[in-house]
């Protein structure tokens, strides 16, 4: 047996690399690579080989390029950063294809600006959750946080690079990220951007210089704003600056700094001072100030100002309607809203109160946010924004997000619009593929053919039996006797106790009766296989089972939903609504059960994830996810068949369990014993050997599961 601590020889490494990189077909040269790797200590070899293998499952070229650079990089970078680098390349590959992904690999220096050994960077994926919540807590417009190629904002989205590693310590890098986010927030909150900023700066002969100087002036102003608003953060920002030796400001800047530190200073003052500051030496950029991308800001702002004006006017019109006011009913002037900032202006940002005909109205949350956003763009609330839109003045298509017909997906160009994205577990990569599955919910087209009553007739004996046995399961209120505490005295117990006392024996204290009320509190989700392989017998058996099941569950009173799943490739994952959880079991649902038809393939991960999410929105003590299936997870193309699909499904089921959902599987696949224990656990599945029996069994299985 080989010793685990000895480095691998070049020959061994070469063999592994040849296999992973499929040298036979790709003709990649791996001998020099293997030689380089063989000089490393074993733990470093293992680390790199592991990542080469994992990235090779995504794309061999990426893995090869990664391997070629990784050895040199290993000396400079923290392992976490290398991992993030490899994952970022794979994510880029998923999202944008090979060329941009290779760019990520080649630009490793840009990826992490490391200036010191083993940089312990803050990785976007790790910090974005906290920072997004952080920035949402600050006042102003609701901002988003995304990964970008630099630190900048377009005034709606704040962009941070994938890794920040300018400071030697991880905590400091996190603080730097926080400072960057706060600084970008301050640009939107304290109104750095005006509509014509871009043009104004363009009047200077050297645009770049004008922009840099303006940015420096604004940095001074915003630092002062942050000092007033968030003193703790401001201290931290000064410390970061000091550690990077960036606190030096050229002497001629002092008076401008003082002027811009006044609480009433605005971006106008910065622009005014720019005339003086333009020829002055440019101060060094501060670590958190990022870039000023005015083109991005200008585009976003122009679109937003138009959109929000429309939206605000439409929302005000809706508000009017809710208030029951007639709009210009008797020919005189239409009712007008006025806005007055509410009293407490301590946060600096006014809270607006709407006034309609001298009556103050508390604006709904959506309108309030719009008012704030409009105020931040315009510096005031222009009166024309406040006149409610007339009927038909705007086409709702301009501002409403239309629900697209899912069936048009392949006819048009919008493959991903309006869909929900789910990640998928790539077992080769040992990591999720982000936003990989494009999921849509569709309705099963109802077929009104009296199918359900036919089935009920056919199984009339069974239906009677089911009703009886499920009625018996209903946990009913009952009187518990001989309780220590209770609402009433239990006379029988009391008489006994008294006679006990006469006999000299001890008296019991169980003298009361109590009403026992149990609320059976179960929500169950049925996930029905609608793949092409269910065609014929299986589809019939599934539909019959559903009819009987619904009958049983209606008797029992448990809440339940039924969804069918199918799909073809990751771009077209579809869930078919048969019955929503709050929908009553009505004619429509019956017709939909009748309308269940086999579709495409059995991609399961997305369905489990989506239905788990739906269950998460239901309040119930016990939540069940029951799958009716006829075989292994499978899909056309992109390698879902085999271990990939099984591992993704397993991961999705683990996620479901973690969020408090109990998964269970009913299958008719006789080979299921080979893989289902791995997916659902040893006991959480049942194999039915004859399709014919399915309708007889399903309700029984459910009963056993929930008692």
């Amino acid at each position: 047996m080989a010793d685990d601590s000895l480095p691998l020889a070049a020959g061994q490494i070469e063999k592994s690399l040849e296999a992973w990189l499929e040298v036979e077909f790709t003709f990649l040269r791996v001998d020099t690579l293997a030689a380089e790797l063989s000089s490393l200590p074993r733990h470093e070899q293992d680390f790199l080989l592991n990542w080469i293998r994992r990235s090779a499952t995504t794309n061999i070229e990426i893995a090869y390029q990664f391997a070629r650079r990784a050895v040199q990089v290993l000396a400079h970078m923290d392992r976490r950063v290398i991992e993030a680098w490899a994952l970022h390349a794979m994510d880029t590959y998923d999202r944008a294809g090979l060329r941009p992904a290779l760019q990520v690999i080649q630009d490793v220096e840009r990826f992490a600006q490391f200036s010191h050994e083993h940089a312990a960077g803050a990785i976007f994926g790790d910090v974005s959750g906290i920072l997004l919540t952080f920035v949402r807590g600050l006042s102003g417009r609701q901002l988003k946080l995304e990964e970008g190629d630099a630190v900048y904002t377009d005034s709606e989205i704040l962009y941070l690079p994938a890794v920040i590693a300018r400071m030697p310590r991880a905590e400091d890098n996190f603080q730097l990220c926080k400072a960057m986010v706060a600084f970008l927030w301050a640009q939107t909150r304290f109104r750095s951007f005006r509509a014509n900023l871009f043009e104004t700066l363009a009047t200077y002969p050297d645009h770049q210089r004008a922009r840099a100087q303006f940015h420096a002036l604004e940095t001074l102003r915003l630092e002062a704003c942050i000092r007033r608003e968030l003193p703790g953060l401001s201290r931290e920002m000064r410390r970061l600056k000091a550690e990077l030796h960036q606190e030096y400001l050229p002497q001629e800047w002092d008076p401008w700094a003082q002027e811009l530190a006044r609480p009433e200073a605005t971006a106008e003052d910065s622009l005014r001072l720019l005339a003086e500051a333009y020829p002055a030496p440019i101060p060094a950029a501060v670590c958190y100030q990022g870039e000023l991308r005015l083109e991005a800001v200008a585009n976003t702002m122009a679109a937003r100002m138009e959109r929000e004006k429309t939206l605000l006017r439409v929302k005000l019109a809706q508000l009017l309607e809710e208030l029951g006011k007639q709009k210009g009913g008797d020919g005189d002037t239409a009712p007008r809203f006025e806005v007055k900032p509410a009293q407490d202006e301590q946060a600096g940002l006014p809270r607006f109160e709407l006034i309609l005909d001298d009556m103050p109205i508390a604006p709904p949350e959506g309108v309030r946010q719009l008012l704030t956003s409009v105020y931040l763009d315009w510096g005031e609330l222009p009166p024309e924004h406040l006149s409610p839109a007339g009927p038909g003045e705007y086409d709702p298509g301009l501002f409403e997000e239309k629900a697209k017909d899912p069936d048009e997906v392949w006819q048009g160009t919008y493959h991903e619009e309006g869909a929900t994205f789910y990640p998928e577990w790539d077992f080769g990569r040992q990591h999720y593929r982000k936003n990989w599955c494009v999921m849509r919910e569709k309705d099963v087209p109802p077929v009104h053919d009296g199918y359900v009553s036919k089935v009920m007739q056919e199984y009339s004996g069974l239906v009677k039996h089911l009703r009886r046995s499920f009625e018996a399961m209903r946990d009913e209120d009952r009187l518990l006797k001989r309780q220590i505490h209770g609402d009433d005295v239990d006379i029988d117990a009391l008489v006994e106790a008294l006679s006990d006392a006469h006999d000299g024996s001890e008296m019991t204290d169980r003298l009361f009766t109590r009403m026992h009320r149990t609320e059976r509190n179960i929500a169950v989700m049925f996930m029905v296989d609608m793949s092409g392989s269910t065609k014929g017998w299986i589809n019939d058996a599934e539909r019959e089972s559903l009819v009987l099941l619904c009958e049983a569950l209606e008797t029992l009173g448990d809440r339940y939903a039924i969804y069918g799943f199918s799909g073809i490739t990751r771009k077209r994952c579809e869930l078919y609504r048969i019955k929503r959880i709050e929908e009553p079991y009505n004619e429509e649902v019956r017709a939909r059960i009748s309308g269940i038809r086999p579709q495409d393939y059995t991609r399961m991960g997305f369905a489990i994830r989506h239905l788990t999410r739906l269950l998460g929105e239901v309040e119930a003590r016990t939540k069940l996810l029951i799958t009716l299936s006829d075989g292994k997870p499978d899909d056309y193309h992109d390698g879902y068949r085999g271990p990939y699909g099984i591992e993704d499904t397993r991961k999705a089921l683990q996620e479901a369990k973690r969020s408090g959902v109990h998964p269970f599987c009913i299958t008719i696949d006789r080979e299921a014993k080979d893989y289902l224990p791995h997916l659902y656990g040893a006991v959480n599945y049942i194999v039915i050997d004859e399709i014919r029996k399915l309708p007889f069994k399903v309700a029984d299985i459910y009963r056993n599961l929930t008692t």
Partner: protein
Amino acid sequence: MQARALNPEEYFVESEPYYEPTGDEVAIFEAAYGNRLPVLLKGPTGCGKTRFMEYMAWRLKRPLITVSCHDDLTASDLVGRYLVKGGETVWIDGPLARAVRAGGICYLDEIVEARKDTMVVIHPLADDRRVLPMEKLGVLLEANRDFCLAISYNPGYQSVLKDLKQSTRQRFVALEFGYPGAELERRIVANQAGISAEVAEQLVKFAHMTRNLKGSGLEEGASTRLLVHAGKLIAAGVAPVSACQSAIAQAITDDPEMLAAIQELSSSIF
């Protein structure tokens, strides 16, 4: 000093509780009381509903009987029940019956948590009949002139199970409580916690930040009560950031990421 044991109906609020009115709620409550109308207090937790009741009990000089409702609270917990004492059964009045007899103010806190059958006994008390049916005694107890029923309810919980039925809510005069305005809240926090106006202002700013997060990960923002708690810790010498973490952040969420984000917010302010 030894703890005093009092009968509920003898519990008078003796010294004036600190209460800052946010609107005309005091006048409305007095008018409702004068006309023997029951009152419903709506609002998020920790915004001063219970303190308001104490204040009104003190103003009206009536005993205050508070029942905090829980999901096992039944009608007999309110009305009363038979107990066995030395071989005999003895009737013991519940808190609601005591208040009805003594003419006190009965305050049922978080009424939606109680079992549905409790509503049945409240209904005849809450309309112009003003009687408490005591089924087990076979008695209809007519309310004392001075009796007053008040209930509270938090509409913020987005659960259909915790909604108040129309038949119940339409019997009450409803008072809505929200968080006080920034200036008022600062005064309350400074007064109650004994801290400087500046620190109180920072605490209130912090509270606003957490309230901005309602809906994006938090069920509720920090209440005024939590601000007072944090203020008291600060007054006792705890560093503000740790005080906010223990008294506020940990109290409103368990989610580690949310806790970290709130920590970052508080460290940005102090």
